[in-house]
């Protein structure tokens, strides 16, 4: 999956992407890093085709129907219970099969009859990630999946995302947290000022910034660009 020579200017005339080039690894969790406002979510919108994706710049990406996209926020109906929501998704995914409450993933079983709107922020996020992960798609996009989660839940969520690549799925996620990006199964892409400024594994990133801490490496990279 490649993006080549992609330019995009916002309605306020600010250039968000300036000859952006990116190469996403197929068998790793691609992590899009960068400061707030760098355009990470907007890039996911282009990749997902929610914003029109120029074919000449985006190559190797699946079509809309083969993409699952976890959006920021809580885009499930607050009145629906966790079971109703999950059942709906499973009914769409596999219309011939009836989904029973005891087939809910273990993590969600205790929340089965709780309305989505009454869940905590972290629980909502967990429901969304679980739901998205159960879709059979070629490419999975996650927009800040760890945001608002406690460390234990965040680890659980990232592990779930990581499992997708083990099943041969392609994954791109945005992140601001690094505690769970702990192996070279991840490919980092640092986006700032319209370009991908770094691409490589966490080990490469630490080496490039001459540190052994990813947060420090991130800050050094951001300072270097500015």
């Amino acid at each position, binding site marked *: 999956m490649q993006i080549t020579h992609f330019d*995009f200017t*916002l*309605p306020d005339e600010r250039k*968000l992407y300036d000859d952006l080039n990116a190469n996403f690894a197929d068998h790793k969790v691609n992590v899009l890093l960068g400061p707030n406002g760098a355009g990470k979510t*907007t890039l996911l*919108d*282009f990749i*997902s085709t*929610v*914003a029109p994706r120029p074919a000449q710049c985006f190559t190797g990406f699946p079509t*809309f*129907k083969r*993409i*699952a*996209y976890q*959006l*920021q*926020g809580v*885009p*499930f*109906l607050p*009145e*629906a219970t966790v079971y*109703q929501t999950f059942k*709906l*998704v499973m*009914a*769409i*995914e596999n*219309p*011939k099969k009836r989904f029973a409450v005891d087939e809910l993933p273990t993590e969600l079983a205790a929340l089965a009859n709780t309305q989505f709107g009454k869940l905590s922020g972290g629980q909502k996020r967990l429901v969304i990630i679980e*739901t998205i992960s159960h*879709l059979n798609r070629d490419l999975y996009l996650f927009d800040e999946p760890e945001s608002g989660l406690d460390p234990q839940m965040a680890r659980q969520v990232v592990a779930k995302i990581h499992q997708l690549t083990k099943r041969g799925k392609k994954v791109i996620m945005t992140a601001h947290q690094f505690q769970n990006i702990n192996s070279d199964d991840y490919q980092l892409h640092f986006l700032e000022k319209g370009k991908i400024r770094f691409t490589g594994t966490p080990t490469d990133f630490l080496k490039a910034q001459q540190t052994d801490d990813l947060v420090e490496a991130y800050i050094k990279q951001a300072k270097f660009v500015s």
Partner: protein
Amino acid sequence: MIRKLSALSKFETEMVLKDKGIFVFTLLFPTVYFLVTAFTGSRSLSPANFVQNVPGFWTYMVLVGVINQITSAIVTMRENNFLKMFTFIAGDKRLIYYANLIPQVFVIQAEILIFDVIAAIVYRADFRTLTLMLICWLANFIIIPIIAFFTSLILIVPVKVQTMGALMTGYLFLGLFLAYVQTNSLVVNTLMAVINPGSFIIRAYELLLPGANNVVAYLGILAVIAILYAIAGNVIVTKMSLNSATARA
């Protein structure tokens, strides 16, 4: 496709039935107004006066129901990312639109049916009037989706939720006002039915009422307008943005 639509419609129906608030605008307000005017007005409550009063209430209920429960609902879904999320899950945004439209047609029809029962009691409806009510009610199964397709024009306007309420209220009042602008000119009436869904509904009911003029001509014209509305509505739903009006790209 059908199974997906069925699953989504079932889910949507469960959600719709949880929200009793929708009945306030579409059913309670017109019913209260109807009862107040019925018992304080000077007209006699006879079946003969029925055809002059009740179609206006049906028009209001169809318009308000479609605007509040179908078109505004889609805008709200788009603004809170629900539309985007579920389009990714379902694979086609038209499924989300139709899954909302189908149960809402039945909800609006249920509201009109309750209103009709009250109207029938108030007007001491005879068999002929009851038959007329039934025919108009059945016609609503065609009229409501057509009006929904027409009002889906709003979906291509980059409207924010905050301005949606004001826009829809204005649209509703204008639609109802224009619906009662009646002339004997086929051309003017046709034009009104093309640009105003309220006029389209009234013209459609008039075709079913006793003593209707130019039935064949109006039926043909309304059928053509309905087909155009349906085509335009489907194109709009297919092309509408999944992104919120406040999104960057």
